[in-house]
């Protein structure tokens, strides 16, 4: 492993339905934890990358406001956006900034206050979530696109609604032990299966919990990491990809090609195979998305992802523990903060500091799979200690 860029601090706010403060205060919660974790102050930050999905922000160009509130001025700051994968896109940029030698310590701050806009405004934005010229005019929405992937996967590979219910039931058992999660209730497989249909075949509990939240990841050069940090976690591989926005531009609907490309690139850079990953955070905005992730990441062959579910390989003591912090489904999905929160979980796992969520056996390699839109953008990040 080339130990040249490290993560030296991580933080996240508690994910909640409605954060009782402003976006700058929300961002501060995550920064404070990450700064204390890294043992640095705002003066050490050489640049910051601020990540959110702007359709939820009332503040125009929030990067400046947040950088000011966190005390980063006069260091450069700017925004990076790829909807739900914004903060791992920000992480990719931060890695490049440090690797190039342009900056030595970069803060990646992700946040989203989804409750910043009214429910009616949110419904209106939902309609513009796909290609507004060719698909939004039919009344599409995010859950419908993932539902279409579920229907196609069922037909192609024989996966079932029960497999999806098992994924959600698993996420609730870990959401219950994560004190930062928005959804803490445990649900049985039957409760998930019997919930009302949102858009067939997806039901209420197949969909993730909206939340307000923030995350912060501190990226540093090898020199600064060794000087500041007892347990640096190192970047091993970064992969990213994109796919057609319109469904019509895609080869099929039972896999996400952007995630497959991102995974291949990340594994190639890291020089490892899928079975070398000992703990993973995958983008389970819907239950079907987690199943698609198993196959995109090579944890299972295409069509065999259900075996991971049915055999419990994805549990905390299984062959490949996945989303043992509750995932987006139960921990919550504050769009711009999500990727950074996934990174935080993996960093804590690799440092053996994940508390009740700690995967046994002191994992050495962890992976983060973060998807924006319906497989429109994807980032896969592999970390090691």
């Amino acid at each position, binding site marked *: 492993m080339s130990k040249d860029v490290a993560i030296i601090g991580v933080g996240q706010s508690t994910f909640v339905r409605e954060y009782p403060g402003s976006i700058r205060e929300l961002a501060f919660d995550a920064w404070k934890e990450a700064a204390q974790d890294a043992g640095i102050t705002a003066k050490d930050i050489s640049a910051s990358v601020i990540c959110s999905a702007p359709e939820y922000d009332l503040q125009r160009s929030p990067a400046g406001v947040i950088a000011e509130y966190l005390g980063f001025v006069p260091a450069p700051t700017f925004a990076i956006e790829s909807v739900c994968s914004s903060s791992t896109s920000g992480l990719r940029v931060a890695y490049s900034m440090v690797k190039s030698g342009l900056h030595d310590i970069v803060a990646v701050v992700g946040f989203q206050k989804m409750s910043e806009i009214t429910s009616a405004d949110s419904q209106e934005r939902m309609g513009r979530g796909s290609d507004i010229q*060719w698909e939004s005019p039919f009344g*599409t929405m995010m859950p419908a696109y993932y539902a279409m992937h579920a229907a196609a996967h069922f037909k192609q590979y024989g996966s079932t609604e029960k497999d999806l219910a098992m994924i959600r039931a698993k996420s609730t058992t870990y959401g219950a032990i994560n004190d930062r999660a928005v959804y803490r209730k445990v649900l049985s497989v039957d409760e998930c299966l019997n919930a009302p249909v949102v858009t067939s075949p997806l039901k209420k509990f197949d969909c993730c919990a909206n939340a307000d939240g923030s995350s912060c990841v501190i990226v540093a050069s090898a020199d600064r990491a060794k000087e500041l940090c007892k347990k640096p976690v190192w970047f091993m591989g970064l992969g990213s990809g994109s796919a057609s926005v319109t469904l*019509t531009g895609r080869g099929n609907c039972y896999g996400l090609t952007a995630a497959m490309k991102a995974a291949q690139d990340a594994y190639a850079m890291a020089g490892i195979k899928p079975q070398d990953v000992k703990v993973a955070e995958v983008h389970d905005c819907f239950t079907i998305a987690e199943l698609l992730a198993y196959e995109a990441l090579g944890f299972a062959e295409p069509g065999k992802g259900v075996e991971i579910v049915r055999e419990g390989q994805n549990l905390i003591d299984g062959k490949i523990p996945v989303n043992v912090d509750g995932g987006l489904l139960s921990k919550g999905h504050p769009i711009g903060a999500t990727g950074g929160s996934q990174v935080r979980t993996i960093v804590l796992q690799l440092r053996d500091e994940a508390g009740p969520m700690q995967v046994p056996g002191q994992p050495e390699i962890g992976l983060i799979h973060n998807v924006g839109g319906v497989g429109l953008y994807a980032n896969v990040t592999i970390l090691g200690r």
Partner: protein
Amino acid sequence: MSFKKFGRKSFASQTKVDAFVDYLEKGEVRGTQCKSCGAKFFPPRADCDQCLSNDMDWFPIDGVGTLVTFTRQGFAPTGFEKDVPYTTGMAAFDGVQVFGRLDGSIPEEEVEIGMKVAVRTIQYDDGQLSYEFIKA
């Protein structure tokens, strides 16, 4: 004709392929084909990303297609609430895929992946133009 006339609710008013709406009014659903390299596009494009030409022909989406996937939506974004529930999906035709809604009169239990479909144009009460999949 303004592109604003396309769809149950329109979000985009200007495009170089607004002849799409003129064809809808004539009862036709058409995509574009690059005169230079022959690439076929649906939804239609004004510019070819393969050879950079912007000289396009319009070809009809006709014949029988196959339903690739679908979902029956129980919820809708703002502006579509009155139509709920409705079924959106994608079908494969000769060389292109088409996204749209299914004819609401097809019984729910008859909708399945692999079913044969055709496209037909429709006009809503408010004059908006669109197309939908019917059983073929």
